[in-house]
């Protein structure tokens, strides 16, 4: 096509477009997305007219030198609810939109955030980390000194142990963001605490480590030395950049696979001792009351778990045509090992078939899985996923879990989740229990 002809066509197209603009804009105003890909008149307006970004200068390269998402993505965001909040949203949680998440990495701005006294804004120049107690040589580190240690980079999820914890007695959230989004995953960079301890020398009688934050709640938790000497880290990097303030900038603890609450943010102090500390968040909360009246304390690992993320109540199948080939996709994760397989049921957990794992399968990490499905218009399904890990654990049914844990435990609920697809393709969060 020569240039002249191209220009003529362009001109004609533009005239044509303006004539039709009134008709198109009526549809646009009615809220019908151009994503709909429907033919109107000669063709889809998204193809037939010139887009407003297609013929004018874009932003200079100096705009947004630190990039931000397209403004059109503004609804892909963390969300909170006052029912999970106290103290003017200072002791609260904002959860990750896992219905919109891709792969096994959460963008830093969407990483779920929980604080016990608000998000602290730490001046990195005044950051100090004290490591003391039962060590041969106590130390104080600046941020620069901390980052000088030989580092490791690992991909791990962090999950609040109350993920799903509002639903022990029945489903409450018709939303996968709220039912399962008290978690997110990132590639973390930091130093193994055992690397620092090689230098300091841990006294043989040391059994427990206190990790304490510098925020106004001085959030603290006690961790057994087994984990400290295994894979516990102090991290400063998150997906290739500094931690965000909501994730504990400039440094936080990362205890792979264990309760998110143990991954103390805005870290300032590690102390080693013979006995644990009985911190507020390991006694009054983060303990699992059983029907016996005894509560499990120091309940560390987030157990093997999974959920369907697509379809979801948020992004359902009501737009699908009969016979459409569609991918049912989800996440599986275990804080106790590596995902070895995921089964999917179409009848609420009566019968299962194996789903396929997708992408990287890493230790104590989100793992993607899917199954290809041919959608029949009008069909009703109960989609239940069930994951297994290499420690030998498998997700229990709701009945199996509540038989031992009762319904007052709040934390560590990992029974299978079920998503109902209705006749019209809507999706509802349900539970299958006796």
């Amino acid at each position, binding site marked *: 096509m020569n240039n002249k002809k191209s220009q003529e066509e362009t001109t004609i197209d533009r005239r044509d477009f303006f004539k039709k603009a009134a008709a198109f804009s009526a549809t646009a105003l009615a809220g019908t*997305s151009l994503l709909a890909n429907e033919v109107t008149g000669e063709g889809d307006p998204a193809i037939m007219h010139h887009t407003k970004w297609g013929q004018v200068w874009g932003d200079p390269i100096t705009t947004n030198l630190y990039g931000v998402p397209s*403004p*059109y993505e503004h609804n892909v965001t963390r969300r*909170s609810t006052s029912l999970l909040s106290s*103290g*003017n949203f200072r002791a609260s949680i904002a959860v990750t939109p896992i219905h919109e998440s891709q792969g096994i990495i959460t963008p830093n701005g969407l990483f779920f955030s929980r604080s016990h006294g608000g998000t602290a804004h730490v001046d990195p120049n005044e950051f100090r980390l004290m490591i*003391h107690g039962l060590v*041969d*040589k106590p*130390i*104080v580190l600046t941020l620069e000194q901390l980052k*000088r*240690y*030989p580092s490791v980079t690992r991909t791990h999820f962090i999950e609040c142990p109350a993920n799903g914890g509002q639903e022990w007695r029945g*489903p409450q*959230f*018709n939303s996968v*963001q709220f039912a399962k989004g008290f978690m997110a995953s990132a590639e973390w960079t930091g130093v193994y605490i055992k*690397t620092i301890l090689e*230098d300091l*020398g841990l006294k043989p*009688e040391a*059994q427990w480590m206190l990790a304490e934050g510098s925020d106004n709640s001085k959030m603290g938790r006690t961790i057994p030395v*087994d*984990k400290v000497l*295994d894979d516990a880290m102090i991290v400063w990097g998150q997906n290739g950049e500094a931690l965000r303030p909501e994730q504990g900038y400039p440094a936080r603890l990362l205890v792979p696979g264990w309760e998110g609450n143990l991954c103390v943010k805005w870290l300032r*102090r590690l*102390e080693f001792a*013979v*006995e*644990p500390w009985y*911190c507020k968040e390991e*006694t*009054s909360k983060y303990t699992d*009351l059983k029907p016996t*009246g005894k*509560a*499990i*304390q*120091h309940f560390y690992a987030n157990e093997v778990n999974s959920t369907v993320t697509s379809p979801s109540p948020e992004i359902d199948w009501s737009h699908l045509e009969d016979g459409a080939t569609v991918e049912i996709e989800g996440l599986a994760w*275990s804080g*106790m*090992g590596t995902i*070895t397989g995921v089964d999917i049921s179409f009848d*609420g*957990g009566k*019968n*299962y078939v194996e789903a396929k794992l997708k992408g990287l399968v890493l*230790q104590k990490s989100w793992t993607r899985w899917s199954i290809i499905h041919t959608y029949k218009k009008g069909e009703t399904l109960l989609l239940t996923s069930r994951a297994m890990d290499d420690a030998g*654990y*498998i997700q*229990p049914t709701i*009945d199996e*879990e509540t038989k031992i*844990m009762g319904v*007052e435990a709040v934390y560590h609920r990992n029974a299978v989740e079920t998503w109902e697809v209705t006749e019209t393709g809507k999706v509802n969060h*349900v539970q*299958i*229990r*006796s």
Partner: protein
Amino acid sequence: MFKLDRKLIISTSVAAIALLGVGCVGGESAPTFSDGVNGNISIDGGVSYPTINGKSGNYFVNESHIGRAINNGRVPTDAEEAKWNTDVMAGYVYNEDPKALGLPEGEGSVEEGEALYEAQCVMCHGDFGSGGGGYPALSKGNAEDLQKTLTNNRYQDPQADGPTRVFGSYWPQASTMFWYIRDGMPHPKSDTLSVNQTYALTAYMLNINEMSIDGQEVDDEYVLDRAKFLKIKMPNQDGFEPNVRGSDSLPGVRAYYANPANFGAHKVKPAERCMTNCQETNATVVRIAGEGISQFIPPMSIVRDLPEKKAETINVKEVYSNACAMCHDSFLSPGSAEWAGYTAKGIDKVYANGINGTETGMPAKGGANLSDANFKLMVDYLISGK
């Protein structure tokens, strides 16, 4: 250098390394099943992934720093350690070494505690610690009686009474309360209470939970000091598992999580897992009652459009509900006659106190992110009620 004489840990983890080396390490093959016997489990009941031949699973690991001194940082001064080391331990072992326990000398009365509570705590924690202001309740009555509710479980009957988990009925140690009050309270200006004030508030907590120390009721006349504090026995101190008391509790913790039945977990060999007719026969589909919880901030939406331009002016009622109501609903509420006592000193003084915060509990701007001008609109609204 790292001490390798840590027999407790090493004996377990060396065994784990030896066994895991066979199954889980060495290349990109899919992880294999391990049945969690013969000690190849970590303290949480899961597996650990040691580094073998420079790799842990799919990750390459550079371990060549091992054995080389890093000599980073400096030794803290005694004063620095004392400044930050303010935790208070429960002290099953440390009772023999009072300094290590971290509980300072001091004293405070229930009477002083109540006055402090009324001035700095009640706006959030409610009258007598009853909660209701969005913050946790601190008491629901007699601690010994309420401890007995911990076996309540709304397993079949949603109308039944649930367990009551407050300080007196649930917390295993009083040290937790003392430590958290001093370092974490009051929420908007923590770490401002003296040791004696902390004793006084702790005494008041024991009082409203109707507790006794060493057979003596913590009544309205009670004065708490360090010696008395060390004799506190919480009603639910034995209500937790696994045991973590004493100088050698980790073997018990490891044993607890080695048994999945203790914590509601299930193990199965993959080939033996149920694939057909797996669900209980009387299981039914349970749906969300009513709307469920759906008041999300912001409301749920998956639409791709341009965000609305934010309004330049604030909606005072909305800001009030998000940022002020938690405390001001019960104290100096919008349009309350109590405001007269404050406005008498001049509106500029009220504005300044609000903007800068006060000693008696008002956080600067109530913690809201507002310009001075918009904050003054909020003050006007609180005083006038419209």
